[in-house]
């Protein structure tokens, strides 16, 4: 177990790669007086409120103190906190998710082998997809060996309507960069030289 000082160090630096600066949750607890009780078996009516005039005065006093201070001119302003909030009331629930590998292209359809990501113990299945199920842009990616994700789920709209959703997304992970091609070519060249040196090349 690391010493406590070390743990403290980790805690302080841990937010560097966390989602803290992305999400709003943290911000909700940074503003205003500490009013949200949690794990506290008292009256729920008191939760998250600024109920008394005394509390309000305290906040006002702190604001006035800040106003009295000189504003730093050389401060670096952090970029606005990005948010990608759920549309109010809209929920999407993934019922099943597969990872597919294209095995055969048949005109406007293709065959694929599906691995069930929701229940990995399920055996692989072969399924035929039609081009209309894809984004127009994704059709260019359909080739034997390409990977895609197929998700089915339900979406509940703000008005309470429930829709079944099926979504196919192709993986756009690049396979080769210039340097990986260069490195592969170098390895190939080394292997070729080795075969030549051993006299194992076809004449």
């Amino acid at each position: 177990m690391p010493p406590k000082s070390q743990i403290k160090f980790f805690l302080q630096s841990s937010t560097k790669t966390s989602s803290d600066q992305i999400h709003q949750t943290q911000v909700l607890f940074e503003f205003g007086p500490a009013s949200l009780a949690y794990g506290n078996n008292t009256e729920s009516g008191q939760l998250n409120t600024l109920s008394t005039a005394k509390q309000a005065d305290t906040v006002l006093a702190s604001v006035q103190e800040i106003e009295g201070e000189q504003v730093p001119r050389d401060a670096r302003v952090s970029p606005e906190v990005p948010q990608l909030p759920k549309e109010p009331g809209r929920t999407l629930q993934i019922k099943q998710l597969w990872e597919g590998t294209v095995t055969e292209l048949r005109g406007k359809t293709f065959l694929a082998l599906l691995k069930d990501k929701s229940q990995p113990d399920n055996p692989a299945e072969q399924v035929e997809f039609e081009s209309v199920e894809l984004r127009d842009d994704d059709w260019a990616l359909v080739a034997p060996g390409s990977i895609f994700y197929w998700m089915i789920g339900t979406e509940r709209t703000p008005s309470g309507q429930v829709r079944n959703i099926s979504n196919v997304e192709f993986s756009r992970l690049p396979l080769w960069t210039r340097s990986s091609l260069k490195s592969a070519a170098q390895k190939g060249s080394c292997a070729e030289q080795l075969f030549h040196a051993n006299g194992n090349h076809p004449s």
Partner: protein
Amino acid sequence: MARPVLEDNSASIVLTGTFNPPIFQPEWFARQNLLPLEEVEKAEIKVISPQVSEFQTERFIIQATTGRFAALSKPDANPAPLRDLVAGTFFVLEHTPLQALGLNRDMHFAMPSEAAWNLVGDTLVPKEIWSRVLKGRIGMRTLWVQAEIPDFGDEKQGSRLMVRVEPSGKVKFGVYFQTNEHYQSPKTDPTSNLTEIIRNRWEGAYSYAAEVANQVLSSIVD
């Protein structure tokens, strides 16, 4: 007793290092075939400048500053495309000096009742000791727990799992879980190593985050 329900769920991948923010604009991602053109055409650009770049598409938010790159997926989305986008980006930008990687998941669970909600706080932070010295209502606000990343237990390299638990700011009587798998870049070939971790660990990190939260909550409310 009724089970906690996952009401809101999102994921993000964060990298620290040295970046050139103006590169990260929608057209660049389309040119590299990392995002579909249709998605890029509808992208909403907030800012593109030498210091910061930020835009959002139908599925993602991308934010880059000179020291930090963050990609966030839409709530409840399939997590795999986020991995492909980030791994693909730094596969293309293979010479970007990366320092650290964070694989993150944020989850808001609705508890079945107020009593169950309070039980979470009381169990994770027992009030007995605190009530001897603190006055008034005592409540848990934030709990950080540090652990090793499964099958990657190497604290010497600075990797670690941080789990944060808080009352949810989004869900009534909800509990917020945040997991952060933090990886420090190795000295040799840092970019391809971190990209490799994104490719190999992302799905594991995503499902392990849910497993941690579910097990903790289940052991409290069951």
